[in-house]
């Protein structure tokens, strides 16, 4: 068994930034454990540009963004192991990983940061009616095959789900010679950024079918045809609205699920969105175990992931140094009217910063609304928003001096502007 101050599980953008955050706050004895053969995680297959506008004030591709963090990790001589899978963790922070060279390795850590990202919702999760032939895959799979290994997954492709990965793949597959027949989205609004709607769909005249879903897959060996239908207010297919497409491939971009198997195995408390419940230092309800990046909640921008992960790294450093308060008194943070979730879900209210960041998503697009912070029955802050949409995460700073006590309930909700 080896001992480490801090073990970070996952060597993507969150894991690397967390390591840098911890290192820069005085914790040098770190190990990053990465499952794939490279640091950088999913950034390596995201060869499109648009990353780094906040972090580096320039527009980078995924591999370029990853490279800048790999260089920062290497400049600090932070150790990492690749091709290595963590098989278990326990509440005493014993981490077991395995790889082909070292066999099974036990690491006793003082703190752990979970930075394991997400996996994609797959066909089984939504139960599409019809056959189960070859040619149905997730957008991320199609992206990995095409961008890192050079395999085009089909010639006539239909995409279900208008999230950013689906839109990015519509463009990428078109540029590589496939015909993208259309994108169907079950919601009445797109789930992607405007930038991606314009540059990935409109540029290539790819039709978007809002309030539609795939209602049938037909094919014996391979997908031969798919049907889409309009959906009603309860998201049920409306009979008689079927449209047929001669597709050989169906790509799914229908959501990401935090990869929390390890935390679930030790009964960590989870939120409704399947990320861990954390405080403002990103510590879960298990002493010394932290969570950040997409495994905590799905971000739209990697720039926000690395900023969050550095804070989690700092939080883990403070924990190891005995500087994090171990109090029973906490403020519970709740998502109120119109708000889907908030992170953090609890506040310990120590002296380390003057303000804290709230991140949340709204449930539906709204115009001319206030974000209202209600603390123990009193409105302590209101922020006007001309436009607010679910596909863009809101990040708001809340000064700590507005919180007069360290117990109670803080609710974040949307309020319509009075006429």
């Amino acid at each position: 068994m080896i001992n480490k101050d801090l073990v970070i599980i996952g060597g993507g953008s969150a894991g690397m930034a967390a390591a840098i955050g911890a290192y820069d706050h005085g914790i040098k004895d770190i190990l990053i454990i990465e499952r794939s053969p490279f640091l950088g995680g999913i950034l390596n297959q995201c060869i499109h540009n648009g990353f780094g506008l906040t972090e580096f004030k320039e527009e980078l591709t995924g591999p370029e963004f990853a490279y800048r963090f790999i260089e920062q990790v290497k400049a600090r001589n932070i150790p990492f192991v690749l091709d290595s899978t963590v098989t278990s963790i326990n509440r005493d922070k014993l981490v077991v990983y395995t790889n082909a060279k070292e066999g099974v390795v036990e690491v006793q850590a003082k703190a752990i940061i979970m930075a394991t990202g997400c996996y994609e919702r797959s066909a089984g999760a939504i139960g599409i009616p019809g056959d189960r032939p070859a040619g149905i895959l997730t957008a991320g799979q199609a992206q990995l095959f095409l961008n890192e290994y050079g395999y085009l997954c089909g010639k006539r492709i239909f995409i279900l789900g208008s999230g950013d990965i689906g839109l990015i793949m519509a463009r990428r597959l078109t540029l590589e010679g496939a015909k993208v027949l259309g994108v169907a989205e079950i919601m009445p609004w797109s789930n992607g950024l405007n930038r991606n709607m314009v540059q990935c769909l409109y540029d290539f005249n790819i039709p978007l079918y809002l309030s539609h879903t795939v209602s049938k897959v037909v094919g014996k060996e391979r997908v031969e045809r798919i049907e889409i239908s309009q959906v009603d207010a309860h998201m049920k297919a409306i009979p008689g609205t079927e449209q047929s497409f001669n597709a050989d491939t169906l790509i799914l971009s229908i959501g990401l699920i935090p990869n929390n198997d390890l935390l679930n195995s030790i009964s960590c408390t989870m939120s409704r969105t399947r990320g861990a419940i954390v405080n403002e230092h990103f510590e879960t309800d298990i002493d010394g175990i932290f969570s950040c990046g997409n495994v905590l909640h799905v971000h739209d921008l990697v720039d926000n992931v690395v900023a969050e992960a550095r804070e989690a790294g700092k939080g883990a450093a403070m924990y190891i140094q005995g500087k994090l308060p171990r109090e029973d008194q906490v403020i519970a943070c709740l998502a109120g009217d119109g708000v889907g979730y908030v992170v953090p879900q609890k506040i310990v209210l120590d002296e380390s910063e003057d303000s804290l960041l709230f991140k949340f998503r709204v449930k539906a697009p709204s115009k001319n609304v206030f974000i209202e912070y209600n603390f123990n029955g009193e409105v302590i802050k209101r922020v006007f928003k001309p436009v607010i949409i679910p596909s863009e995460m809101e990040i708001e700073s809340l000064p700590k001096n507005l919180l007069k006590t360290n117990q109670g309930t803080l609710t974040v909700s949307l309020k319509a502007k009075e006429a």
Partner: protein
Amino acid sequence: MAVTELICINCPRGCHLKVDDQLNVSGNFCPRGAAYGKQEVTNPTRTVTSTVRISGAELPLCPVKTAQPIPKGKMSDIMVSINQVFLQAPVHIGDVVISNVCGTGVNVVATRNMEKIS
């Protein structure tokens, strides 16, 4: 009079813009929308990202991009040029893969380090 309809990409508001022959932009909430509308109608540009084949590296493909945005209409020609390139490892970020691609004055450059493997 021909009017072009666009969706502004500057912010989540996504204003529906109308741009006429005289480059008058309407429907924009802020000045950034007017600038975007004019640019999109007169000279729309895009950054193209793709991959080129490579041998001697750990992976069979090296990701690349146009170092600056190129005229939107040249995207498919540039894809044809990119698909003819075959690199040898090592290749490093920023290495020029195609210079002055399709006469645009813009280089196609590598976006990932691809080290030589023995």
